[in-house]
């Protein structure tokens, strides 16, 4: 009787473990454990994060670089 109970408990544990593994796999948990090549786009960028990214894009101005030429030009 006791042996039978033990067997059922083991089977129940096995089923629960398998269920947990299956759920983890479904939600891509295992994929996160694998080192991947750096992705440019992440999984959940919000509009606020995208906004910050866009604000960080600086087109710049070549003015300073061009002014540096002027000191030489004035000597010619």
């Amino acid at each position, binding site marked *: *009787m006791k042996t039978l*109970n033990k067997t059922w408990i083991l089977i129940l544990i096995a089923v*629960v473990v398998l269920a947990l593994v299956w759920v983890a796999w479904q939600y891509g948990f295992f994929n996160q454990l694998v080192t991947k090549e750096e*992705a*440019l786009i992440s999984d959940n960028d919000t509009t606020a994060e995208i906004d910050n990214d866009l604000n960080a894009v600086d*087109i710049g101005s070549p003015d300073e670089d*061009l002014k540096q030429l002027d000191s030489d030009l004035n000597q010619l």
Partner: protein
Amino acid sequence: MNRKFISSFLTAVFCLVFVFSVAAQTNAPSREDIKAKKTELNTHLKNERETAKKRIETAREEAKNAAETRRVELKNKISTLRDEKKKQIATRLDEQMARLNARWTDHFNNVLDRLSEIIGKIELRADKAQAMGKDVSAVRTAIQNAKTAIESARVAVETQVKKTYIATFTSEDKLGAAFKTVREQLHKDLFGLRDGAMKSTREAVKNALQALKSVPRVDEEPKATTTPSQ
């Protein structure tokens, strides 16, 4: 005791089977679609970067070869100058102007890569919103406009890369004026590119983001929704 245990075990198994079947019917295709789209976008962005980089390198090589004769002529003329200091300055200015054009076209190209990446992020967020049943048609149009603007700007940057800035002068007293003319042309071209194609591209990306922001609760992640069982 044994019967009780077996019945509870069977109940547990039925519960798990129910959870499995419900989970299998959840929004799985959408989640997979979004995952696939993310991978596709990342691959596309990397390819686009590589292609743009190669285009710039090719254009630079072409420009260098095309201007080779004129550059040799300039070097020869500089070598005939009597003033040693002027010789050094003229040589330095010629190198600096070429370097400046290369530096700024590389910078503009990097900015376009970054804007392209941001458009990818907007596109993915729009996909998620669409998966949640939201209307993103205005966002799609704005994304397409931004993509067109990025491509036009890439062509403009490539055109700028192909330009060469080599002074031509007939006599030593006209040396300064010749270099000033070239400097002004470089200034005009770089600012023209920055204030034209580059700024309008940034604006187009900003418009796409604004369109995305106007979608209600757009930052919500798609939740698992049950589809009717067959």
